[in-house]
């Protein structure tokens, strides 16, 4: 994970990736990129037509079209039960093996001033951006970390694990399968919530917090895997599990177009000089960060700066960089912060009270 590391910490060739929000935008970009890198890809979204169109687009990019497989599942991920169903179907399709990589990418923003946002919309923002990812994480991690329990959706891996544990293998001899990865797509708004993104920024900040504490908790399970004592409860899974979170900025996508319908002018003003990325650019940046072994992946220079300025209790990927640049970025906030406040103030002064939209 240092400056000179060239190891790919996120190999996907021959692996199966379950990707939510995969029918458009960043998700579609990710699907195509993973296909190009040799992965089998299952995309999940609600709309069947969009899914099928995306599936064709993604599978056309396959590096090895004869061996790589592609699938789509239509589901509403805001329910816990649907997430379990999706995992079960994905596993069944994947020859009884759970996907090794699960990416909770589904999300959508409905930006507007707080008082112009209905309660229903605020709850819905939490549903689509936070709960969908939390339920998927809960179902996936439960099944990955306790493969020998009944809640597992994979029958064959449980047999392997139980016999390994029964043999009383010591930690040195216990076979290790490749690391499994759970990835959350958050947003750089999580580092600094601004006027007009209230409920969305709060949900994305929630995701960041979830990632930080899950990262802490996974140490427990990964440590248990190396335990030489077999009398410590259920046998651990034969692989490490790692969690990562991506923090993109502005992405030019159908989702972005949708946002513009409700976004308040002051929010647009605050964002106007932010870098914009296409779905392919943001997917490329995200995967490159994962290949470098990063835990918190920003996809452009602005996200990078915002990230290091708001490191707080998150584990550092590159200690020196995060601290030094973070220090500089914090100094920059002394000026940027008040400047943003002034922009909002002046807008209000110029335009008067926002008209109620309800």
């Amino acid at each position, binding site marked *: 994970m240092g400056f000179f590391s060239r190891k790919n910490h996120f190999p996907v060739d021959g692996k199966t990736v379950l990707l939510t929000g995969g029918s458009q935008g960043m998700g579609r970009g990710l699907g195509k990129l993973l296909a190009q890198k040799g992965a089998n890809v299952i995309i999940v979204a609600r709309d069947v037509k969009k899914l099928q169109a995306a599936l064709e687009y993604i599978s056309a990019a396959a590096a090895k079209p004869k061996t790589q497989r592609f699938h789509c599942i239509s589901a509403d991920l805001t329910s816990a039960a649907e997430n379990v169903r999706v995992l079960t179907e994905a596993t069944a399709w994947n020859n009884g093996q759970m996907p090794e990589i699960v990416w909770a990418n589904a999300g959508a923003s409905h930006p507007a001033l707080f008082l112009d946002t209905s309660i229903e919309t605020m709850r819905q923002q939490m549903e689509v951006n936070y709960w969908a990812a939390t339920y998927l994480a809960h179902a996936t991690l439960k099944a990955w970390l306790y493969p020998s329990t009944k809640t597992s959706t994979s029958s064959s891996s449980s047999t392997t694990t139980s016999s390994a544990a029964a043999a009383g293998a010591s930690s040195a001899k216990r076979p290790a399968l490749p690391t499994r990865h759970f990835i959350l797509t958050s947003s750089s708004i999580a580092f600094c919530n601004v006027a007009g993104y209230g409920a969305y920024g709060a949900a994305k900040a929630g995701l960041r917090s979830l990632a930080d504490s899950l990262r802490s*908790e996974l140490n427990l399970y*990964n440590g248990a895997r190396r335990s030489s004592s077999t009398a410590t409860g259920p046998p651990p899974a034969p692989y490490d599990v790692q969690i990562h979170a991506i923090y993109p900025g502005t992405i030019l996508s159908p989702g972005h177009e949708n946002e513009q319908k409700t976004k308040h002018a002051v929010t647009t003003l605050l964002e106007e000089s932010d870098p914009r990325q296409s779905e392919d650019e943001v997917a490329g940046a995200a995967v490159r960060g994962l290949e470098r072994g990063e835990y918190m992946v920003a996809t452009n220079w602005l996200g990078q700066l915002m990230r290091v300025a708001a490191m707080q209790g998150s584990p550092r990927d590159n200690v020196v960089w995060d601290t030094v640049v973070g220090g500089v970025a914090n100094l920059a906030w002394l000026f940027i*912060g008040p400047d943003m406040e002034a922009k909002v103030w002046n807008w209000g002064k110029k335009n008067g009270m926002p008209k109620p939209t309800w």
Partner: protein
Amino acid sequence: MGSFISKNEFPVEGRTVLITGASKGLGLEAARQLAEKGASVIIVARGEDSLKKAIAYISKSARSPDIQRFHFISADVSTAPECVRVLTETIEWNGGSPPDIVWCCSGSAHPTLFIDTPLDQFQIMMDSNYFSCVYMAHTVLNAWLRPSTGLEQPESDFPQTARSIPPPARHIIFTGSFVSFYSFTGYTSYSPSKAAIRALSDSLSQEMNLYAAAHPTLPRVRVHTVFPATMPTQSLEDENRVKTDLTKSLEEGDQILQPDECARRAIRGLENGDELIPTSTIIRLVLTSVLGGSVRGGFWRGLANTLLGWVVMVVMIFIRWEMDTKVRNWGRKYGSSGMLKKE
């Protein structure tokens, strides 16, 4: 009292304060101290019995018992309709005016490992911690800022003096947590709700600039979040019953603050005009390193915070590393339940 050095940015004498989660803990102590400072107080919680006891305790501290009034409302503020009802009843009781200050203290924590947490607990925590703030803020801000709802006092009620002193600001206060900034093992289902509150506070604070500038004669709305230290309360006892031994060991040595001291520090921060208010040293230090774009109170204070933040950022590296190592070693030694083996 005419100090040139520091102005009280949170005057409460003769004003009305609505506090949720005020039948115990931090909310109760905050209510009592504000009564001491001359406020009329309405407290909200679910249990009527504890509310009755609380009101008796609070009103005893009233500075001017003949003028100050006290009231309680039994409600579950984790749903939107209840928050609307609370505000409607408050306005009625308060002579047709909305309260000047709203302080949201209600909330709960269920600190078990993520995988071991029942799914309904996730929803409960998000609703009682984050959404209760959303609902209260939505209904109160509408009353304060939307004249067309008929609940707002017409501008003519705030007479323009020759010197045009703006009316005292209104305040809405949320309750965050140390885990708003730094989440770790055991708090995975709780910390997102607290991080969400901090994020909401930041964006609302920015939005209030817009309304303030548009209507300079209306009272400004200030948005704050208080970050309490660990307090020995009933809620903590409830938490500790489900908390894993691992989490307890990670928290060993945490500064514990009595709720009344915590409330005192919170009120001091409010009087100082701070937006993000720490109540313990460790929280203050962490806060300086995470401020990012959050409002910081002027250039020189901001600079001092930034310099201190640099030091803390370095320290944080070791703290996080040490904590991760502890968790890993625990797993190696005791397995993955997070609990010490019972003989």
